[in-house]
């Protein structure tokens, strides 16, 4: 039995068999072997190649049997290239030579050699060749899958309940998660607002992150307990521990039921101020969860899953089907659909020659859309068509200046004209808003407010860009905090500018789901929040327990502080007084 501590990012208890999945950036550590192990390791390399070849040949053959659409033919070509590389004896020899001369494990030799080859390709100016780097990374992944064992597989083919263990989780990987089978998450990297945390909270499953080397402590199939309340993970628990956790689990469910009872009650402060509680969703089937928990609409409908879940670009009908279902279910309640916000992942990276060195600052999100008008217009068309079914609003992510917003609106007008010509109905007066998630947008909120119907502050990215911290990097994840005075100053600026312009401003980042921060946000002037559905009851409880007057005083105190630590402990104490049992 092994016990490890990390950061608790999503509450609850899960106990189950673990499934280890690899992140695309997993670094294989260099491990030495003894000369007596040489034969085994070299054989592992050979076996990995043979299995990978078999796997790919099988895929090729299945591909031949099906209809050859353009996508299938492209995949076939790509796999043909991969097979050539897997058959290349000099490649294999280079790897086995490394095992021999450096006395390292098969898995290290494979990873190191292929990455060296990939980076050599990546350096060549000719794009047709530097593009091959992506192929080499893919081949590396395929071989590593063989070497690291069958339990390290992709998540799409689950047939039993599992607890997922990974180094870190990318949007690509989590897009395939099936709530029926995925019962908990544990990640080596990450912090409170890393993607693993966000997904776990949306799914309402327990998660612990920042475990550092948990992927090396657990083996596929081990029984693992994830304690998302205390931030503890246990591998192969003994009987005593299992029994202890069974008890904890039932206690936790009782608290949950108590909070659920609040569903029917209105979201109003003690001094009668209405706070609109909306939900953030990633998939259409989470919409009913929002309603079930007492949410009043969808403040952020993330649309990336449409791009991540399939190998081909979604069609207009795919978009329409996904949105129409939700919009129709919500009727008069608002549904804010955010246009594609991808970057640093399979979709935008697969079109690149090599992975972008700095994807957060790169061609992502609205910038990618503005350079890929076909893709952008398809999504806009579908959103417009659904706007006759209910109260749909459009939101553009990562807008950094007024020019970008104008461009996006111009494209939208083009699409509206196209629909007019085709006599297709849509809401001509559809509200167009933007996410404020960069310092530039926050500082220029005033001119932006003239061209947008509403703002939604994306605190996750706003914090990252303002503090220059990557929330997924466990080396610096403790530097990431919504309690940083710089961030609070920017939020206050945005709210003031929005109020002056007479437009709505909501907060849709993780900050709004945290009981510690909700009073501060109310005190800063926020009257609408959009949060993970699972957190709606708890946040409503806090709202119903405070007065705006108290929140305003709290905010004034906080804005005078200059230290993150001071702010966060002040907020924690204030929250504890309001909602003692949740802490």
């Amino acid at each position, binding site marked *: 039995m092994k016990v490890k501590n990390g950061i608790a990012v999503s509450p609850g208890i899960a106990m189950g068999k673990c499934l280890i999945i690899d992140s695309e950036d997993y670094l294989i550590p260099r491990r030495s072997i003894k000369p007596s192990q040489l034969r085994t390791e070299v054989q592992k390399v050979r076996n990995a190649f043979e299995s990978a070849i078999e796997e790919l040949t099988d895929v090729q053959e299945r591909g031949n049997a099906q209809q050859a659409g353009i996508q299938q033919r492209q995949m076939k070509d790509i796999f043909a290239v991969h097979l*050539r590389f897997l058959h*290349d004896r000099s490649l294999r020899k280079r790897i086995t030579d490394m095992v021999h001369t450096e006395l390292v494990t098969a898995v290290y030799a494979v990873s190191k050699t292929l990455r060296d080859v990939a980076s050599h390709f990546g350096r060549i100016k000719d794009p047709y060749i530097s593009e091959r780097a992506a192929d080499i990374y893919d081949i590396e992944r395929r071989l590593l899958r063989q070497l690291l064992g069958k339990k390290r597989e992709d998540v799409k083919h689950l047939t039993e309940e599992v607890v997922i263990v990974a180094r870190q989780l990318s949007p690509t990987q989590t897009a395939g998660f099936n709530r029926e089978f995925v019962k908990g998450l544990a990640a080596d990297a990450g912090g409170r607002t890393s993607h693993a945390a966000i997904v776990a909270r949306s799914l309402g499953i327990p998660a612990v992150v920042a475990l550092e080397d948990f992927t090396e402590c657990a083996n596929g199939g081990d029984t693992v307990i994830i304690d998302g309340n205390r931030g503890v993970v246990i591998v192969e628990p003994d009987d005593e521990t299992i029994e202890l956790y069974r008890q904890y689990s039932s206690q936790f469910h009782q608290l949950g039921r108590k909070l659920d009872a609040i569903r029917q009650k209105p979201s109003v402060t003690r001094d009668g101020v209405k706070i609109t509680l909306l939900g953030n969703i990633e998939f259409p089937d989470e919409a009913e969860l929002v309603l079930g928990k007492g949410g009043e609409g969808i403040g952020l409908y993330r649309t990336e899953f449409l791009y991540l879940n399939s190998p081909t670009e979604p069609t207009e009908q795919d978009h329409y089907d996904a949105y129409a279902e939700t919009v129709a279910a919500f009727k008069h309640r608002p549904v804010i659909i955010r246009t594609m916000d991808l970057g640093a992942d399979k979709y935008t990276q697969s079109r690149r020659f090599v992975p972008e060195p700095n994807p957060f600052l790169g061609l992502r999100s609205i910038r990618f859309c503005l350079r890929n008008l076909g893709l952008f217009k398809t999504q806009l068309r579908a959103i417009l068509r659904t706007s006759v079914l209910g109260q749909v609003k459009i939101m553009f992510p990562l807008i950094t200046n007024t020019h970008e917003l104008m461009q996006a609106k111009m494209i939208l007008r083009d699409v509206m004209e196209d629909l007019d010509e085709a006599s297709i109905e849509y809401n001509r007066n559809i509200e167009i808003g933007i996410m404020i998630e960069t310092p530039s947008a926050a500082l220029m909120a005033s001119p932006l407010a003239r061209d947008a119907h509403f703002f939604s502050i994306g605190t996750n990215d706003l914090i990252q860009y303002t503090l220059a911290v990557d929330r997924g990097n466990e080396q610096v994840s403790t530097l990431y905090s919504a309690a940083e005075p710089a961030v609070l100053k920017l939020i206050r600026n945005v709210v003031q500018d929005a109020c002056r312009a007479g437009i709505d401003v909501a907060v849709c980042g993780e900050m709004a789901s945290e009981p510690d921060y909700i009073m501060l946000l109310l005190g800063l002037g926020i009257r609408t929040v959009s949060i993970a559905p699972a957190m709606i009851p708890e946040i409503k409880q806090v709202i119903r327990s405070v007065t705006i007057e108290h929140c305003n005083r709290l905010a004034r105190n906080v804005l005078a502080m200059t230290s993150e630590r001071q702010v966060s402990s002040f907020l924690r104490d204030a929250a504890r007084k309001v909602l003692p049992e949740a802490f």
Partner: protein
Amino acid sequence: MPARHRGEVPEKMTLEENTLDNLVSETEVQIKNTNGLHMRPAMQFVDAANRFACDITVSNDQASVDGKSIMQMTMLAATAGSKLKITARGPDAEQAVNVLRELVEEKNFNEKAPKARKKN
């Protein structure tokens, strides 16, 4: 070794040493297709090379690689217009060199040759 003339006549073939296994055949070729020796042509070259028993080496000014290895051929990164030397050593060396030369120069790897150079 007989002297080789560089840079004048684009094509040359020489036969050295009469032992079957050490039969060496060589030629210089020029990559003519539009996108240089990128993936598909490289694959065709490597597939063709692997049909022969002899060793096949491909070199340019900077490097010399195994013509049967897709990894090494891609690394050679030959762009349009670059000259390569193909050296084959073994019993079917002459045949190999003929086939490979034809693939590169005459069939242009079954692709179009570049039009007059455009400015980038």
